């Protein structure tokens, strides 16, 4: 479903070049739940931004659903983000002036759905995260865990093919984090592919596969089956 081949990302200033990703290779299959771990500054977020078409890259090829999307125009990238990709952020990133329903509705507006369709999807998405009765509340009236659930509802409302989560539990206490994680697992079971960046090894272990990034390269990946690690590789592998 998602294939990255020899992706490099270089941030340049007048004085210095920083290689955020170098010869990065990865394949994620449909329906997978992949955790991405690694130390701070290793390139996890850069990878996620590139995967989510929020940033371009310097070299390499990126295939999404078999289509090379290396040189997409801004409008096409926005349309793909809107249609195929859902985002969940550590800081929730809800729009504070909009109530829950309006927040969830935002991507649907850009997609051009009718008011009736939007209403149906918003209701369904908020019901799914257990906040269907609080549609008119503002984000500031909710706890952190609830806000993250709204962010998940917003990501789900457009029925995306895959969900990118950047430390979705980073700002939550353990109880809330567990609830959010259970929700993500449920979503994954329903067929949505999830790529989750996390620092928490416990959470990473709950994914089907854990990819570790160090210095902008995949240096290790572990396949979990039935809670046990089956494969471990310590060098850059092209999962092809």
């Amino acid at each position, binding site marked *: 479903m998602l294939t990255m081949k020899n992706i490099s990302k270089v941030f340049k200033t007048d004085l210095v070049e920083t290689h955020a990703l170098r010869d990065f290779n990865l394949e994620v299959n449909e329906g997978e739940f992949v955790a991405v771990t690694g130390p701070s500054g290793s390139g996890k*977020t850069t990878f996620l931004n590139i995967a989510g078409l*929020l940033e371009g890259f310097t070299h390499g090829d990126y295939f999404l659903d078999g289509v090379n999307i290396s040189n997409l125009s801004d*409008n096409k990238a926005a*349309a793909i983000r809107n249609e195929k990709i859902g985002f969940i952020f550590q800081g929730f990133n809800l729009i504070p*002036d909009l109530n829950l329903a309006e927040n969830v509705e935002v991507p649907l*507006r*850009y997609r051009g759905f009718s008011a009736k369709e939007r209403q149906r999807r918003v209701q369904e998405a908020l019901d799914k995260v257990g906040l269907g009765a609080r549609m008119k509340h503002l984000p500031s009236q909710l706890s952190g865990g609830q806000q993250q659930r709204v962010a998940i509802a917003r990501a789900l409302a457009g029925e995306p093919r895959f969900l990118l989560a950047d430390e979705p539990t980073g700002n939550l206490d353990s109880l809330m984090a567990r609830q959010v994680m259970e929700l993500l697992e449920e979503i994954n079971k329903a067929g949505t592919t999830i790529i989750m960046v996390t620092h928490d090894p416990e959470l990473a272990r709950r994914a089907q596969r854990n990819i570790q990034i160090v210095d902008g390269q995949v240096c290790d990946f572990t396949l979990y089956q039935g809670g046990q690690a089956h494969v471990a590789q310590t060098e850059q592998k092209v999962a092809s």
Partner: protein
Amino acid sequence: MFLYYVDLAWRSIKKTPVLSLLMVLAISIGIGITITTLNVYSMMSFNPAGERSDRLNAIQLWSQGVNSWDEYHSLVTYQDVMNLRQSGIPKAQAAMFRTGAAVQTDDPEFVPILRGIRVTDSGFFSLFSVPFLYGGAWDKSVDSDPQYQLVIGEKLNQSLFGGENSVGKTVYLNRKPYHVVGVIKEWNPQPKYYDPLNGAFNSAEQLFVPFSLTPIEEFDVWGNSSGWKFEPMTGYQSRLNSEKVWLEFWVDLPSEESRSAYRSFLSHYVEQQKQLNRFTDDKAAADSVQLSNVAEWLEMNNVVPEDNKILVGLSALFLCVCLVNILGLMLTKFLKRAPEVGVRRAIGASRGQIFAQYMVEVGVIGLFGGLLGLLWAWLALYSLSAKFDVADGLTNLSMSMWVITPSIAVGTALLAGLYPAWVVCRTKPSVYLKSQ
């Protein structure tokens, strides 16, 4: 999406009321000043003759001698008027000047009032499309066979006769009885194009009497009277026979043929006068006549002073200064919302959609600024009218301004908003998503 953007704009305005108010004020002040000067300018430069502008022509003759005035005078002599009136080419023609007299009625209780009077020919009323409420102009024969008849205005008819049909009644001008033959409807062309020399924005006269009475009644001249050479004035008759210019002469030439024929007639007339040793300048006869249509006439007589044009330019510059201020305020306001833009971009908004959202917000602010600016302009014009005795014709907010003002306000706001909206729509979503 447009209504969605309007809704977002309204929320944004409510969220930052002080900043939004500052922007609205900046636009409104710039717009208010611009519209005030523009309104005065447009009122001044309005051509009330409309479609008839080209066919109505004021006559000017190079009647002065050598080493005299080096341009055409707007007025002509009595003898020239009397000669030119003989032509049958114009569809209508009218000589005119302004005088004044004490006005009285048969009512002994009525206190005489001093009023300006237009002394003119019967053709005046058709030339300038004067509408009648009762009766009409005096007969054409009166132009050569003087009769004590007059036409009065609706306002004067109201004060003299309580607004009833006064045709046939008597009005006394300097105690001499005149019979009312017509009452004109409210008519006050602004600028007063038929006589801009006596105050282009003064009101039209309420009394009109036959020009043919001039030598008999020896009306005073309430206007310009100029001579290019010394002539002893021993009485009214010597004024009539002199080379003094003090009359305006208008003709209606509805077609190109009639204009050409009349121009030829005037050239022959000048030639004839040269042979009579009246027009002594060696200028060619064809170059010694000038026909000016209404637009040319208004320009020639500086109805819109140069100062006013400069003022419009200055106010436009002031609007530009406001525009730059608004640009800065908008940039501040929009960049504060860059994180929100980052989120919107991440979840599917294109740059175009973000740009449109912010331009709509700018437009809404501009609209509020325009409406407030309209209020400022109205107040400024009202103050001009109330405090400085500026002619009403210049201080009425023209109907077109009710459309032009919001349009200019929205237009300038959009112009000012282009850069801030462009900057914010180019926000890289990834920069803000972590930092929120």
